[in-house]
């Protein structure tokens, strides 16, 4: 960086004399703020603002790189085509289904894990690690690992089920079981982050509140619903929003586990965008699909911002 030599040199000079470079490098607050925020602003402009404009622009064009034809303005044609495209409806439906199943699922499991991890264990690190490892594991790895878990002949899931007398399930041959396997995997992968956030919230609740409730004769269950849950609400809301937005973007786990199969029955909107863009090089339609996903997550963000505002 620019500033390394400055200390030594400016110590040697008289208080009155400031060389030009000190003035240049030691500017007023406002100029300095612009200088410091500029790299972040440039990056955001390059990777988010300009691409968003480009995305909306391209969604009104017929632009296919395979045809080699120049982009042709088609108005809302991409969006009209989408309405009649069964794969669009299927993948959007799957994405919404995954969101509605895995977000509450991860919340319930995460809450349970957090309550368990909050018990006074003699050693904290094994518990902490057991929550960190699923978080740190790449989603794509989790997809592969659980594809092996749910293997119909040699998978450990069917082995355990078999010990309880359940017939082996051929997970990836039926749309319903494949979707169930995907959702279970996503819930496993995402619940520990939820648990970490909730656990941090749990540890800020003062013990005296529970002691007071004990004195008042409130039972454990009543304490949970009247002290724990209300005080956890802020951290739960934040965790839920992030989880919802990432659930809408689900790609890695179904791509690795089923690649959308059987047929397109477990394909998500992100997978359809990826296919149209990278495999078919149909950038116009890919953009139109991405605009839909963008709109979906904007709705979630709007709800989020509104919750923050009402909070205070």
């Amino acid at each position, binding site marked *: 960086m620019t500033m390394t030599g400055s200390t030594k040199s400016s110590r040697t000079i008289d208080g009155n004399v400031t060389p030009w470079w000190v003035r240049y490098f030691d500017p007023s607050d406002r100029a300095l*703020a612009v200088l410091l925020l500029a790299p972040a602003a440039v990056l955001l402009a390059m990777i988010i603002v300009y691409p968003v404009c480009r995305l909306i622009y391209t969604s009104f064009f017929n632009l296919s790189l395979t045809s080699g034809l120049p982009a042709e303005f088609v108005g809302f044609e991409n969006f009209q085509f989408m309405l009649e495209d069964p794969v669009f409806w299927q993948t959007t439906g799957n994405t919404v289904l995954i969101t509605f199943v895995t977000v509450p699922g991860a919340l319930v499991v995460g809450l349970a894990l957090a309550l368990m991890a909050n018990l006074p264990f003699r050693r904290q690190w094994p518990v902490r690690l057991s929550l960190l490892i*699923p978080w740190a*594991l790449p989603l794509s790895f989790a997809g592969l690992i659980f594809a092996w878990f749910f293997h119909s002949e040699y998978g450990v899931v069917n082995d355990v089920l078999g010990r309880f007398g359940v017939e082996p399930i051929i997970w990836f041959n039926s749309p319903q079981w494949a979707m169930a396997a995907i959702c279970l995997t996503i819930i496993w992968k995402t619940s520990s982050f939820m648990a970490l956030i909730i656990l941090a919230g749990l540890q800020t609740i003062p013990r005296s509140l529970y002691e007071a409730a004990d004195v008042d004769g409130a039972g454990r269950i009543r304490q949970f619903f009247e002290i724990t849950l209300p005080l956890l609400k802020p951290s739960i809301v934040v965790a839920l929003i992030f989880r919802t937005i990432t659930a809408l973007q689900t790609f890695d786990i179904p791509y690795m586990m089923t690649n959308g199969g059987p047929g397109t029955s477990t394909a998500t909107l992100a997978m359809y965008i990826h296919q149209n863009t990278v495999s078919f090089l149909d950038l116009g339609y890919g953009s139109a699909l991405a605009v839909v996903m963008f709109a979906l997550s904007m709705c979630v963000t709007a709800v989020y911002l509104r919750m923050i505002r009402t909070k205070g």
Partner: protein
Amino acid sequence: MRSSAISASPVDSLLSGTPLRLIVGLILLTNGFFPALWILFTSLKLEPELTQQPITWLPSDPTIQNYVQAFSDQPLGLFLFNSFAVALLSTALTLLVSVLAAYALARLNLRYRGLILSLIIAVSTFPLVTLLVPLFEIMRALNLLNSWTALVLPYTVLSLPICTLMLVSFFEGIPRDLENAAMIDGCTRIGALFKVVVPLAAPGVFTAGILAFVNAWDEFLLALSFNSSPNLRTLPVGIQLYQGEFTFPWPVISAALVVGIVPVAILIVIFQERVVSGLTSGGIKG
């Protein structure tokens, strides 16, 4: 279950004795570690043992042959190198950019501070997947498809919001007097930032770095879409190549997965407390 019988005795000493805590601890440990352990067991088995019925749990005759094969069937070393390069470069860039931005937001009296902070929060919820198409178009036009840059820039933006928010709260915790003293001694403001504030905020900077690294290490969709050339595949992209059209060499895939999990697992084990505090402070603030 057999697994509980195996792991009960070492775990017993880790948790205080009551049966409830023992059971709860076992549930937590199974949930957290079992999938990774199962992959480790699979990676130590050979194909014939894998196709036995009923399946075996612990490997009867552990072997490292799958690891040798994982490195010879596909250029696993190259995948690791690419993953490390992209993750480290984007971590360095994220830290540099977010330290500067966070300092401005924490220390200078900005008129639009509140607005900028809410913009950063809005960006942190931005679905990067939707930008797959325009980023693909831009990288293609700039001839950056199949280059580290194509991933380093988006990964930096992916981690920038959470790292900036984390660092703002770290910088706010450092007394202003120290900086002022340095500036009276003739340090410039930016000199004071790098000589006084950053060293004091080192734990925070380091935690932000780990989060940025893990984010970049995990990313799959952009890596799959932008860098498909054999020389530039990252680990998550490369790992799918072990499967043939009709074959799934699970022991070899498992060995490659274990190799891919180890670097991040080491980071997590060593720095677990910092990672947890970083994650939760960012999450609660964000």
